[in-house]
């Protein structure tokens, strides 16, 4: 889903058009969460970004900013220390309740059936198969109390536990020289990460939150927890993992957020 470069029409009053559109659309939307989502995203900037238009009526400015973001991906890859651990905290500092955040509101949280759910691993892996929740629980487990940092700026300390992701990749026979790992989720979210972060000792295929199985709002049944990356890079309700050398992008990344998203 690559943005197209469309030249904005300078004769059109952009903000006025958006206000008109909101006035027409919003009353027809019964569902409050969709209305809030529309209201939040239908700013001129949101529309412009989603359609690939540059804010400043100049598509080359937008292209330059995106190119610099890709350069920053490379720089972050160089700065990333494969053994540099994120700070950990005592249980007493866990934020309860932990904030919910997604590109939709709480009444649209997906309820996944853990018994029928399978984790499919495909792409550059020797063992392309589907894993059950029980099989994941039978693997060695680790956990930490770490700081979740959102791209919006806020942070919250939480406790996740699950299978060390490097261990899981090795058991799947993943090609560890591949560049990217793509995650597809039950809430139609997707994001991808670099192999170096995937192999980081604190990167966890999390099954538990704060000592109990992940509740739906935090990503039941499986979430990828990486304290070395911002929140939007930590996918919830994962159903498919793809190891690949083709840049996969992501839900927010395709709209202009930085891909590496390292913290």
């Amino acid at each position: 889903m690559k943005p197209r470069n469309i030249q904005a029409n300078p004769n059109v009053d952009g903000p006025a058009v958006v206000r008109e559109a909101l006035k027409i659309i919003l009353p027809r939307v019964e569902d409050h969460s969709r209305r809030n989502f529309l209201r939040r995203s239908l700013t001129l900037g949101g529309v412009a970004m989603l359609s690939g238009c540059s804010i400043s009526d100049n598509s080359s400015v937008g292209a330059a900013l995106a190119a610099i973001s890709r350069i920053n991906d490379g720089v972050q890859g160089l700065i990333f220390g494969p053994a540099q651990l994120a700070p950990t905290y005592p249980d007493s500092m866990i934020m309860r309740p932990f904030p919910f955040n997604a590109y939709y509101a709480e009444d649209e949280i997906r309820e996944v059936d853990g018994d029928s759910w399978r984790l499919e691993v495909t792409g550059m892996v020797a063992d392309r198969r589907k894993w059950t929740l029980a099989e994941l629980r039978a693997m060695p487990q680790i956990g930490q109390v770490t700081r979740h940092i959102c791209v919006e700026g806020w942070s919250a300390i939480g406790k996740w536990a699950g299978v060390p992701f490097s261990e899981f990749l090795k058991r799947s026979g993943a090609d560890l020289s591949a560049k990217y790992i793509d995650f597809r989720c039950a809430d139609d979210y997707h994001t991808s990460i670099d192999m170096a972060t995937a192999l980081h000792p604190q990167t966890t295929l999390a099954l538990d939150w704060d000592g109990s199985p992940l509740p739906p709002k935090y990503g039941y049944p499986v979430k990828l927890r990486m304290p070395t990356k911002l929140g939007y890079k930590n996918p919830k309700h994962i159903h498919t993992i793809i190891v690949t050398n083709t840049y996969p992008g992501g839900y927010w990344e395709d709209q202009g957020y930085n891909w590496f998203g390292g913290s």
Partner: protein
Amino acid sequence: MQPNHMMISEKPAAPAVIHPVWLRVVHWLNVLAVLLMVTSGWRIYDAAPFWNFRIPTEWTLGGWLGGALQWHFAGMWLLAINGLIYLSLNVGTGRFLKKFVPLTPSIILTDLKAALRGRLSHDDLTHYNGLQKAAYVFAVLDLIVLIVSGLVLWKSVQFQMLRELLGGYEGARRVHFIAMSLLVAFVAGHVFMVALVPRTLLTMIRGR
């Protein structure tokens, strides 16, 4: 270089260059960089304000959080590289010693008292008075704090020592915002002073 005598046919010596070309270029690039960083930074703050106010969206750059972040992480290169060039040339050409030294609390106090009495002379623009020296040194240090705290916000896991120095990730957020506020206050004061002595704007454009 004073001539011993003036021949009638000689033209008078041109006024000395107050700001060399490199300084003027660096200064105006810095103006651009600071504008980009502050206005995009305000939009980022607005996404999750940690104090009881937001900055009006009309004052911000980027249109939405995604756009503001793009501007912020592009502008940072201009700010940092331009800043490094300034520091290297300022020290390397000897300009720092010439313009900023001596700088002592008593020099600052003397000039502050003169300024408050309306007696601080601006006739000779080739020298900075004590208040200018203090203000510009403060601005440089403040920008360094902004950059260091910015690095911690960007990569709090990777820059562990800096992170701990600034009170952790959340501490760094406050340091970053306070340093920005001080910089904005400096800019306001600086622009006001330029308005009071408009010749200084000319010297920063023409050099003399």
